[in-house]
C-alpha cells in the first residue's frame, strides 16, 4: 500500500527492549553499538491498582504490549477521544505461564502417566480459573486496549513477522477509509517462552542462527498531525514462494524476491537508510546485498542487536529506523523484515519535522 502525499504521520513511538521502556533513542543506541544484548527483559512491574489486578490475567507479551501502548499514547498526548482510537497489533503464541500448566498436569497424573479422567476430576481445579485469559493470543492486544480505553477499529494478527506488517497495513487502510483518524500499531512477543523455544528448535531455526528475544513496540499514527516524528510512506507484505511443505523459502528465492520488493516499495525513490530484520543466517545472507544495491548511506541489521522477537521484530525495526532518521537527519528509510514465517515485509518511512 502506497500512502498518498507524504504518507501517514507517525506521532509517537514507544519501545520495550533490554534497554528498557523508552520513546526514542533505539536507533541511536544500536547505531552506536550501545544497546544491551538481547535477553530476558526486566519489564517494569505494574504499579497502578488496575494494572496489578489485570496483570494476573495477562501473559508476559500482553504486559509488554500494554506498556508500549501506554507509552505511545502518552508521548502522542492522546488523552481525549480514546473510544475512537484504533489498535492493530501483531501478536504471538500463547504465553501460558508454565507453572500453571505444570500444576494442571501434575494434578492429572496417575501411576506416573497422564490420566484424562483425573484431569477432569482434579487437574483442572489445580490451575487458575482465569488461566484461559492468559493464553488467548488476542489478549496481547486487548489488555492494553481495555486499560487505555481504546474502542476504535482493531485487529490482532498472529505473527512470526509478516502478521505485524499486515497490522500496519490494516491500520493505514483503516485511517485511509475514514474508519478512524488515529491508531496504535505494533507488535509484542516473547520467543523466550519454553514451548516457543522448543518449537523453534524443532523447526530448525535455532540451529540456523535465530537468536530468540522478546520485546514490543508501538507507533501512534494519525490521518493528520503537525510536526510528526515521521511518515509511513508505504507498507506491504510480499509473499515468497517456498517448496511445498517447507516453512521458509530457499535463500536464493528469498534474495530474488527481496530485490524487487525493495524497489517496488520505494517506487524508485532514493533511500538513505536500510534497516534489515532477518530471522537468522539464511535470511541475512539473502538480504545482505540489498543496501549496496539501493545505494543506501547506512544499513543496520536490527536482528543482530535486538535478536528475533517474532511478532515484535518488525515493529522494533520500524522504531529503530525512525529514530535513525531523526538522529542522523536523513529523509527516508526502508525497513525490510524477513521473519520465520518466510514472507517479506517492506515499510518505507520518511522523516518528519519534529
Amino acid at each position, binding site marked *: 500500500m502506497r500512502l498518498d502525499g507524504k504518507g501517514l504521520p507517525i506521532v509517537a513511538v514507544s519501545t520495550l527492549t533490554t534497554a528498557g521502556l523508552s520513546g526514542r533513542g533505539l536507533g541511536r543506541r544500536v547505531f552506536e553499538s550501545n544497546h544491551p544484548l538481547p535477553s530476558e527483559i526486566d519489564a517494569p512491574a505494574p504499579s497502578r491498582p488496575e494494572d496489578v489486578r489485570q496483570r494476573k490475567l495477562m501473559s508476559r507479551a500482553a504486559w509488554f504490549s500494554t506498556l508500549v501502548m501506554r507509552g505511545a499514547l502518552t508521548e502522542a498526548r492522546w488523552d481525549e477521544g480514546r473510544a475512537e482510537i484504533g489498535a492493530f497489533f501483531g501478536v504471538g503464541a500463547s504465553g501460558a505461564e508454565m507453572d500453571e500448566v505444570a500444576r494442571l498436569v501434575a494434578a492429572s497424573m496417575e501411576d506416573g502417566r497422564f490420566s484424562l479422567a483425573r484431569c477432569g476430576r482434579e487437574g483442572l481445579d489445580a490451575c487458575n480459573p482465569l488461566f484461559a485469559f492468559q493464553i488467548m493470543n488476542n489478549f496481547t492486544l486487548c489488555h492494553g486496549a*481495555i486499560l487505555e480505553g481504546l474502542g476504535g477499529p*482493531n485487529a490482532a*494478527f498472529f505473527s512470526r513477522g509478516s502478521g505485524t506488517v499486515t497490522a500496519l497495513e490494516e491500520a493505514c487502510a483503516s485511517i485511509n477509509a475514514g474508519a478512524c483518524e488515529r491508531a496504535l500499531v505494533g507488535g509484542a512477543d516473547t520467543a523466550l517462552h519454553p514451548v516457543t523455544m522448543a*518449537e523453534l528448535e524443532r523447526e530448525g531455526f535455532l540451529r540456523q542462527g535465530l537468536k530468540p528475544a522478546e520485546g514490543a513496540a508501538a507507533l501512534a499514527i494519525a490521518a493528520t498531525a503537525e510536526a510528526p516524528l515521521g511518515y509511513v510512506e508505504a507498507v506491504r507484505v510480499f509473499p515468497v514462494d517456498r517448496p511445498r511443505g517447507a516453512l521458509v523459502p530457499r535463500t536464493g528465492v528469498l534474495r530474488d524476491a527481496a530485490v524487487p520488493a525493495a524497489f517496488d516499495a520505494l517506487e524508485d525513490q532514493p533511500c538513505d537508510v536500510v534497516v534489515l530484520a532477518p530471522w537468522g543466517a539464511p535470511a541475512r545472507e539473502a538480504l545482505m546485498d540489498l543496501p549496496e544495491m539501493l545505494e543506501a548511506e547506512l544499513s543496520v541489521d536490527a536482528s543482530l542487536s535486538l535478536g528475533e522477537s517474532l511478532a515484535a521484530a518488525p515493529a522494533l525495526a520500524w522504531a529503530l529506523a525512525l529514530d535513525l532518521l531523526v538522529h542522523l537527519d536523513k529523509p527516508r528509510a526502508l525497513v525490510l523484515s524477513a521473519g520465520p514465517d518466510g514472507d517479506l515485509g517492506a515499510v518505507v518511512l520518511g522523516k518528519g519535522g519534529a
Partner: protein
Amino acid sequence: MGARRAVITGVGAVSAFGVGYEALANGLAAGRSAVGPIRSFDARTFPTRVAGEVPIEKTNALFLEKHRGVLLHVGEAGTWEESGLLRDRKVCFGLVAAAEAWRHARCGTAERKGALSIGLGLEQAFLEDLAEELDEGEIRVGAGDLAGGEGVRFRSRVDLTAEKIRSVVGLSGRVAVHASACAAGGMAVAHAASLIERGAADAVLCGAADSMVNPLGIGGMSRLGAPSPRAEPSACRPFDRRRDGLVVGEGAAMFVVEEESRARARGAEPLAVIAGYATTQDAYRATAPRPDGSRALAAMERAVRRANLTPADVGYVNAHGTGTPLNDPAEAKAIRALFGDVPTSSIKGAVGHLMAAAGAIELAACLLAFTRDLLPGTAHFEEPDPECPINVIGPKPLAKRVDYVLSNSFGFGGQNVSVLLGRPR
C-alpha cells in the same frame, strides 16, 4: 464505496451437522440441533460433557484423503499424521472447508494468485506430551534436548492451518491469520472484502477454523464458567430466559471472495455481496462484555453506514447470541436500539460456539437467506427474556425473503465485528 465490490462465490463448511456446506444448510433448514455428548475424548469426569462436535472421533490422514481429493499429494497426509500435525482437529477442518469452497467457486490457476485471510483459534496444547516432560512438579521443555522427540508436539502453532491451506491450494498471495478470538472469523471475511475493495487482491480464500473440543479447551472454558452446567443437548439456549451458558462447538467455514466484475466475467455465480463491515473494541473488561452494548452497536451502525444503507434495509440479524447470561442482553439492547423489531436468531444452540470460527460458520448460515429464502432459527429458544427485548426467531427457521443480513461476532477481550451481506443482483 468505490466501484470494486466483494462477492462470495464459493463456500465450504465443516460443522456438528457433518462435513460439507449442504450438511450445515440442511440441518439449519430442518431446524435441528447437532449438539450432543462429546465422543472424541473421554469427557466423563469433565464439568462440560456436551459439545457441537464434528461427528468424527479422530482427525487423521484417512479423513483428509476422503474429503480432500486431488489437492493432496500422495502420502502427504500420512506424513502429517505421523508427525502429529493432524492431532489438531482444526487443521483438518480448515483444509476440508477450504477445498470445498475452492471447488464450489470453480477456482483455477488464476485464482491461485489470491490471498488467504483466515481466523484461527489458539494453539492446541497436548497435555499428554507435556506430561512426559514433568519432573518434580516442573515441565522441562525448551531448546536443545528439551525440545521433545519424534512425533511429540507440545502444541500446534496458531498458523499451522493457514500454512497447510496455502501450501495445498497453492496460493501465492499474502496470508493473514486473524487471532481475534471469537471475532476472528468475521474479521477475516471483513479483511478479505477490504483487500478486494482497495485493489490489494482480486480473489481471497477466507474464513476460519477452530476446535476447542479437547481436554484443555473444554477444561479451560469450564474453569471460566462460560459453558452451560447442564450436560444436555439443549444446554445452549440463546436469548431464552433460562439460558445459563454456551456450548463449545468446532468446525470451519471457508469462502472464496472475489471482485464482482472479475468473478462474473469468469462465469462464477455470486452467492452474496459483502456490502459492509466494521470493527470496534469494548474496552471494558477482560472478563465481560460492555453491558450497555454500546460498542457492539457502534460496529453494527458502521457496517450499515459503510454499505450505504439504513437500518431499515436490514431484514435479518444473525446474532453472536452465545446463550450466556451477560452477552445476550448486551447484544439485544444494541440490536433493539439500531434495528427495532428485525428478525434475529443465533445458531449457537444448534452447532455450538465455534470460537474463532463462529463468525465464519454464521456467515455461511446467513447464505440461506439468499439461497433458500430462509432465516435460520434459534435452537432451544422457548421462553423470551424481557432482558432481551428483540424479535427472536424460534427453533424453526423463518421463511422470508430479505435483501440484506447482518452477522455479529464478539470476541473474548472485547473485539467486535459486524459483517453485512447483500443478495446478489
